[in-house]
């Protein structure tokens, strides 16, 4: 009898808990994604999918949560996007979630625009405990997990197979190239020789032996690393200017211009023209990003990517350097909002969107690389030749640029010096001397000069 009473009481209590008007919340979550085109739609769509799941989880727990996700990715460029986010944050109208470069974490966390996801998420739970640790670290700053990597990529070196055959490579030689690059046997000296051969033999036009990226970007830090440069001192966290490596890196581009394999006025070439040319064999060698696969095989109409293009790490410059590639993952960040619960929901959405299934949709559609180990168990991802090969060949050797407040100034100045040497405005030695003065003045104690 007593048992019955208790049971009834419990039942009544449980029923009344459900009968009571459940806590209800309507929330509009705004997602702004920088640097995103149509292929990157899942940066926003995955948050929508996550909202669907999260609402159901809340419903099971007896809370009504109605999430409307509003996405925006029609920004004129990175500058417009970053200015938009910072100004909105200053005005207190920041979007709830932003997808941006991991390098924004340092300034935005310092300014208080973003909140650490680790304040809301249990990093020991799935899928967060499945993410590649080196990628997670790239989304951390000052030992705090500020964001979650949204995708991964890396920046390979490309060879046009027909051109390589034309200068005497056999198919086996070409297939061996990635290995020779990775072991440090094939260096930029070889690139220079092979590219020159291709130009001299008339297989490619002058200036098309080595056809680099036409604008500033993380890619150029790779060349600095190729010649032995280090971006950040692991002990102190300070940025590092290695004068010798920097000068060798600049000198390589001067040599490339002299050898007529690269145009002196190459920088500033239209991106559209650039893509068309490299995707269709006008250049012998070049470098780009893993996401270029989508563009080459899509808009540029290269129907036989693996039959026409070989890819490898960025070769080492000489004996002192190392073959390398830089990964520049975009990250999901949660912005500071007046309502703490909104931040929590935004963080939970990011977490769900980072699961292997949803992230694989983005990775394969946009030709990016996965962020979690379980993605190799998702057929969509595992059966994709590009994702599988690029992950294996590149991602394990990838490093990222440092999350450091002064890194923006560092990379801008580094590129300015390269531009001045490349175009002949300054000698590499002068450019490095000026770079050193500028960095010492701007970074002070945050810089180590070697």
């Amino acid at each position, binding site marked *: 009898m007593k048992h019955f009473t208790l049971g009834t009481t419990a039942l009544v209590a449980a029923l009344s808990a459900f009968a009571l008007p459940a806590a209800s919340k309507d929330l509009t979550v705004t997602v702004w994604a920088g640097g995103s085109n149509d292929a990157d739609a899942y940066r926003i769509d995955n948050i929508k999918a996550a909202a669907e799941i999260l609402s159901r989880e809340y419903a099971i727990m007896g809370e009504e949560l109605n999430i409307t996700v509003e996405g925006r990715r029609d920004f004129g460029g*990175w*500058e417009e996007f*970053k*200015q938009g986010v*910072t100004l909105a944050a*200053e005005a207190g109208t920041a979007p709830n979630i932003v997808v941006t*470069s991991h*390098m*924004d974490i*340092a*300034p*935005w966390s*310092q*300014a*208080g*625009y973003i909140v650490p996801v*680790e*304040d*809301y*998420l*249990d*990093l*020991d739970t799935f899928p967060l405990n499945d993410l590649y640790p080196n990628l997670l670290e790239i989304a951390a700053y*000052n030992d*705090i997990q500020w964001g979650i990597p949204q995708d991964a990529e890396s920046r390979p070196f490309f060879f046009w197979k027909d051109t390589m055959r034309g200068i005497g490579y056999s198919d086996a030689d070409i297939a061996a190239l990635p290995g020779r690059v990775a072991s440090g046997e094939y260096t930029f000296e070889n690139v220079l020789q092979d590219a020159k051969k291709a130009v001299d033999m008339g297989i490619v036009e002058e200036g098309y032996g080595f056809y680099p990226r036409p604008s*500033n*970007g*993380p890619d150029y830090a790779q060349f600095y690393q190729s010649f032995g440069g280090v971006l950040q001192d692991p002990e*102190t*966290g*300070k940025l590092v200017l290695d004068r010798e490596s920097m000068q060798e890196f600049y000198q390589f581009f001067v040599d490339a211009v002299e050898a007529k394999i690269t145009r*002196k*006025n190459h*920088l*500033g070439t*239209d991106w559209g*023209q650039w893509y068309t040319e490299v995707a269709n064999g006008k250049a012998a060698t070049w470098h780009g990003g893993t996401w270029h696969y989508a563009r080459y095989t899509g808009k540029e109409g290269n129907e036989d990517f693996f039959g026409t293009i070989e890819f490898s790490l960025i070769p080492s410059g000489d004996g002192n350097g190392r073959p390398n590639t830089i990964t520049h993952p975009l990250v999901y960040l949660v912005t500071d909002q007046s309502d703490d619960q909104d931040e929590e929901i935004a963080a939970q959405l990011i977490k769900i969107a980072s699961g292997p299934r949803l992230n694989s949709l983005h990775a394969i559609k946009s030709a990016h690389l996965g962020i979690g180990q379980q993605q190799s168990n998702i057929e969509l991802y595992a059966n994709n030749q590009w994702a599988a090969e690029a992950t294996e060949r590149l991602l394990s050797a990838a490093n990222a640029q440092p999350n*450091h*407040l*002064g*890194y*923006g*100034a560092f*990379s*801008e100045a580094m*590129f*300015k010096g390269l*531009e*001045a*040497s*490349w*175009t*002949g*405005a*300054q000698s590499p030695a002068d450019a490095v001397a*000026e770079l050193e*003065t500028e960095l010492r*003045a701007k970074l002070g*104690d*945050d810089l180590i000069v070697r």
Partner: protein
Amino acid sequence: MPRTSKPRFNWLGFGFLAPAMAVVMLFFLAPVIMTAFFAFTNMSTSTGITGGDYLLSQSDLLGLENKDISPETLDALNNAEYRVDDAGLARLAAARDQATADEFRTLHYDATFASRRDVERALKDLRTNRIRKTRDRKDAAELFTTSVMDERFDEESDFRSALAASGINQADHDTLVQEAYTGWIWTTENIELLTSLSSSWRYAMNTAIYVAFTLAFNVGFGLFLAISTFYLSPGVAATFRTIWFLPRVLPPVLYVLMWYWLTWDTGIISTLARYFGIAPRNWMLDTGTNAWIVVILINGFVGASLGMILFSSAIKAIPASMLYASEVDGANRWQQVRYIILPQLRWPILFTSSYQTLSLLTSFEYILLATDGGPGGTTEVWALAAYHTALNNYGGNLQYGLGAAYALVLVVIGIITSLLYLRFFNFKELVSKPRIEQ
């Protein structure tokens, strides 16, 4: 009834003037004041614009090493940890309940943890008093912190009391407060940096080249167009003027795009030059000289059209009888231009020159669109450098303060130049009433 009309009249005048005053304040005075204000701050993306909080993070500790601070404090901050002590357990009991605190005491009393994540893991060991919400577990873990590291405080006083509570030596508080402040501070470093960088002098030289050549082209070509169309029949003259006015009315992006088509290595010049055996090249960016010529022409054609309109109307204002008289006296065209037209154009030439100098000093949009300062910084003018510094940075940390310092230099030069112009051209005399009316 009488006497009242005067103040009412004043108010009316003020009312008419008010919109203009508001515009002047908003669009001219306010930007100048704000530029001067920003230039003496270290404002950047990371400091924010609207003030800051107090936060000690790992990277601040690096900065503290060179400051006057006791080794104990530095050590305490470097080894910030979470400790399950009586105070922490009391806080846990207050926040949740005694039973939870007691169970946690039996599990982990006196344990220390390097991070909050480790405490969260320890809290998962609770069995009878499980904490079933992630947020609650995080809040509980936070109760065991012994340090102010990585915690954000809105107010200085809160930060100071947290410092005191965590047992940091009182003598170090001021230094820590200074280091922990995340907002911007007043500084003269930007100006010092500007004067010490060799690139500043190059940008200044580039600006001088840009302004001098573009101005000469603007005024010279504007004059040429005005005078040559003056001697054409009205219909033909109007057609020519309209054509030459096109660069000004075209949207800049479109106008510069046409220059791309003209000058790129796949463009019109290269295609035509190929017939003469000249290898195609980028006529805009091939060399510094190329870039300068293109930059000056792009800006020059835009400016010349304004000069042309002003000069043309000024020439039309010259009494035709003077020209007829000179022809009777046997003057040729050149003599008419030299002795009649040019002297009467003194005022429009002054106006165009001074107006164009000032606008050229601060204009960079056509350069940004065309060469973006290239090749190799050859055409990087001062205003463009200000833009690049303050609003364009791949690494994300925009240098608002330094950019404003660049801009402030332009403001100062602009003011000095206008004063010089007024003096040099004897402005007072130009605007004084004709002697006949005195």
